């Protein structure tokens, strides 16, 4: 596939027709036959389906009898396309290759908000499950009417409906006879019994990996269109700096291949037919631009102390019993402060957007994680009606959070609006991504707890200081980077969603007296959602303190955690982890540490162990092995869950041991992989993941669960190996040495 052909005149319906899609229609019939045992009925429909209950919004039957599933979620590398196809194939008794999945596109797929928070299985997959099961009921009902029999007399297999003891066969397409499905999914819906599953719970391979190894065009970075030109954005040296002057004449004289310069306030972009000429134009433009000074940054200061002194909006998260006993100076209390720096998403491929403004409609191909809320914000920024902005979700480089995707697409859109009829491909340079993406907030945590005479935790007090954790577009221009710099700017919105700051701030243990406070500050750097939000830092603090308390109580760290746990699923993952590491030997300079958390305290359970070796002379920490046990409820795709969990362990190890955004008093100075190193092959531990499946329970997201306990498992292991408690991330050799 060399070129992506595209005709912007396509209406949705034409598009469907052109692909030979037959949509289904019939009046909703009585479904008294849809008897279902109470165990198969749910009280309510899954979230996304409640918002969009129309069956044809989720499913289309194609003329060849296959089914297309439409979802509003994006492929981020988590394998959502495969998991969704498994669920649809299961409920409709289709073979796996009879299902295709169409991802996030405005006015084409349901609006499912953001692909975030490990919510794609709980919302999207469950919506597809109910929609597919409902469609199955309707298809059987139509067939029963056609053959004047009862649905119970029919069987459905690989897209064909047959009558018991008879030879007649009807495909889904034949059954529907060119009609359209217009019904809404309504309860009761009879779901397939888990013991009959063909696909759900199995390690069904992702089909897109073969496309990747064959170098097919699957990323937004790979899009090519006739007449497409290349743009680069020219950003100031630092946030808040303004463009004072730009010597366009001198610049143009230096860049003979320039097609266009787009200037709107401080927004500056250059365009050339050839991509490398656009890159050269960007370099030259930087030399011809004069910028004002930016507001100073607290470079060179102790950031851990700095963020705790910022003005903060404080809130009580939880207050149970009394925590006054913690203030008694009787030596039964353990208290410690923790810190996590600003960290990057650090996508390997810098963000990219492709945009075309044609016939009054702006088309944008983007790897945004939320096409509808982004569309609405972009439309407002450009003064267009939302219907005139068409966003096509196209995979990009992995991000696991809000990286530069929306901003690069916004930059491309601004250039496209200035060059109607010309497709614009705008990719950020590496330093654009490193310096301008929204980071995960720096956070400070203070934890203290008291043991009773039996060595059990009687009191716990915890406070967390954090900036917000979601400044995604949220239908507002003020969250789009370029919007702040236009001649008529939209002011930057801050503190979008603070809930992420105290995510997992409550220990998932039985503690009678508990007090948790959260302090929201607006920090010096741009921030937004990074994988697991505040859970990573909060669990780092909580599970470090649990280790210190276990030591004080003279108990085994795992036994100490089990003694404070009553949830059988929490106990099960910890005991399984214990089995996995049983018999693992450690040399004198090695140690094994562990940690546990239940993501968001309502989602997946995860216990992690790490084995490290410490060189006490150099302070070098080598992670030898890691283990994780995960309970994500019902498993949809076993290998997908394992892949995600392995990735969490490795990525969070990189965060914990290596990563910290650096800045001086003027600007970000970690603008490449040398100044912001991430983990490399020679440092990556071998990882082992076990999954506990609960086929009869709801599935829970698995994409972030192991992120949170990893940091604590590592620092607890370092303590065992070296006697050094690390409370300030990332781990520095100077904190380990000696």
């Amino acid at each position: 596939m060399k070129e992506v052909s595209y005709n912007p005149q396509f209406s949705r319906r034409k598009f469907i027709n052109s692909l030979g899609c037959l949509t289904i229609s019939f009046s909703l019939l009585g479904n008294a036959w849809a008897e279902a045992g109470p165990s198969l009925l749910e009280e309510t429909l899954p979230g996304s389906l409640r918002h969009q209950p129309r069956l044809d919004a989720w499913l289309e039957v194609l003329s060849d009898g296959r089914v297309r599933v439409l979802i509003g979620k994006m492929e981020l590398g988590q394998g959502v396309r495969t998991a969704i196809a498994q669920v649809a194939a299961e409920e409709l008794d289709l073979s796996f290759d009879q299902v295709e999945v169409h991802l996030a596109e405005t006015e084409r797929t349901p609006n499912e908000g953001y692909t975030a928070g490990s919510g794609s299985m709980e919302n999207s997959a469950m919506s597809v499950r109910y929609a597919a099961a409902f469609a199955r009921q309707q298809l059987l009902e139509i067939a029963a009417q056609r053959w004047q029999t009862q649905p119970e007399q029919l069987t459905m297999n690989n897209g064909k409906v047959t009558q018991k003891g008879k030879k007649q066969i009807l495909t889904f397409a034949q059954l529907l006879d060119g009609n359209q499905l217009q019904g809404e999914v309504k309860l009761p819906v009879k779901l397939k019994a888990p013991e009959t599953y063909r696909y759900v719970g199995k390690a069904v391979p992702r089909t897109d990996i073969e496309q990747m190894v064959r170098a097919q065009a699957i990323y937004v970075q790979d899009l090519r269109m006739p007449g497409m030109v290349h743009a680069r954005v020219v950003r100031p040296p630092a946030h808040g700096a303004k463009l004072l002057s730009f010597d366009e004449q001198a610049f143009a004289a230096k860049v003979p291949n320039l097609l266009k310069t787009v200037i709107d306030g401080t927004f500056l972009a250059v365009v050339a037919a050839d991509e490398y000429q656009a890159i050269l134009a960007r370099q030259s433009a930087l030399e011809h631009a004069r910028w004002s000074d930016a507001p100073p940054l607290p470079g060179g200061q102790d950031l851990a102390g700095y963020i705790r002194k910022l003005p903060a909006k404080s809130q009580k998260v939880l207050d149970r019993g009394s925590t006054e006993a913690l203030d008694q100076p009787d030596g039964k209390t353990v208290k410690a402060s923790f810190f996590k720096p600003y960290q990057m998403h650090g996508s390997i491929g810098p963000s990219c957007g492709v945009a075309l403004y044609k016939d009054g409609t702006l088309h944008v191909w983007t790897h945004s994680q939320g096409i509808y809320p982004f569309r609405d914000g972009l439309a407002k920024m450009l003064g267009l009606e939302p219907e005139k902005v068409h966003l096509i979700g196209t995979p990009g480089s992995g991000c696991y959070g809000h990286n530069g995707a929306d901003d690069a697409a916004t930059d491309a859109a601004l250039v496209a609006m200035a060059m109607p009829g010309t497709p614009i491909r705008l990719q950020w340079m590496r330093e654009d991504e490193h310096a301008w993406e929204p980071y995960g907030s720096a956070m400070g945590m203070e934890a203290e707890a008291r043991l009773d005479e039996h060595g059990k935790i009687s009191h716990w007090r915890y406070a967390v200081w954090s900036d917000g954790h979601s400044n995604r577009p949220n239908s507002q221009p003020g969250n789009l980077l370029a919007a702040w710099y236009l001649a008529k700017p939209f002011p930057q919105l801050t503190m979008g969603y603070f809930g992420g700051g105290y995510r997992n701030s409550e220990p998932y243990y039985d503690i009678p007296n508990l007090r948790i406070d959260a302090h929201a500050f607006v920090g010096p750097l741009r921030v937004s959602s990074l994988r697991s939000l505040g859970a990573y830092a909060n669990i780092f603090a909580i599970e470090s303190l649990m280790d210190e308390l276990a030591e004080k109580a003279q108990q085994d760290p795992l036994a100490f955690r089990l003694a404070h746990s009553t949830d059988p699923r929490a106990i099960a993952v910890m005991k399984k982890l214990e089995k996995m590491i049983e018999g693992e030997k450690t040399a004198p300079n090695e140690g094994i540490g562990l940690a546990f958390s239940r993501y968001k305290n309502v989602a997946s359970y995860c216990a992690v162990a790490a084995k490290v070796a410490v060189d006490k002379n150099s302070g070098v920490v080598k992670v030898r092995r890691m283990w994780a046990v995960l309970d994500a409820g019902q498993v949809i795709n076993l290998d997908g869950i394992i892949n995600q969990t392995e990735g969490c362990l490795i990525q969070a190890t990189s965060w914990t041991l290596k990563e910290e955004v650096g800045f001086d008093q003027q600007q970000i100075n970690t603008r490449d992989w040398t100044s912001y190193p991430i983990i490399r092959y020679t440092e990556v531990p071998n990882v082992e993941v076990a999954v506990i499946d609960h086929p009869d329970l709801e599935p829970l997201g698995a994409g972030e669960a192991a992120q949170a306990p990893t940091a604590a498992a590592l620092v607890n292991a370092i303590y065992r190996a070296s006697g050094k408690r690390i409370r300030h991330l990332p781990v520095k050799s100077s904190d380990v040495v000696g």
Partner: protein
Amino acid sequence: MEKDVILRVNGKTHTVRVDPVTPLLYVLRNQLELNGPKYGCGIEVCGSCMVLMDGQAVPSCRIPVVEMAGRDIVTLEGLAASDGKLHPVQSAFVKEQAAQCGYCLNGMVMAAVALLGSNKKPDETEIRAGLDRNLCRCGTHTRIIKAVQRAANEF
């Protein structure tokens, strides 16, 4: 400024009219419309733009295209047989499901092919050293190591 540059890529000779200082990466992606090599960092530290140059895995993001004359370049597109059969390394990546987002996969595959070209049975330490120039953000390293081991066994 622009001149004709002759390139040998994936067994075919191409003449491209281009600014001769243009790094190979952009010519492969834009003039030859190949998707394998990806822009990642532009300074040869992440490996996502790797190609085989006379059998060695090298980054393509800085090296001027004009210096490629007489060289034999192979991209990800050039690994599979003409009948579409995947190279053992490609096939091993599929079997091990050794990707998440897959953006870095190009460089990983090219580095692995070059490694196995010079060392048919690398041990784990040699595989790690052979891939150490390549960054992955999703954390698929251990799967990729398994894929290279599988490819070595099936080669």
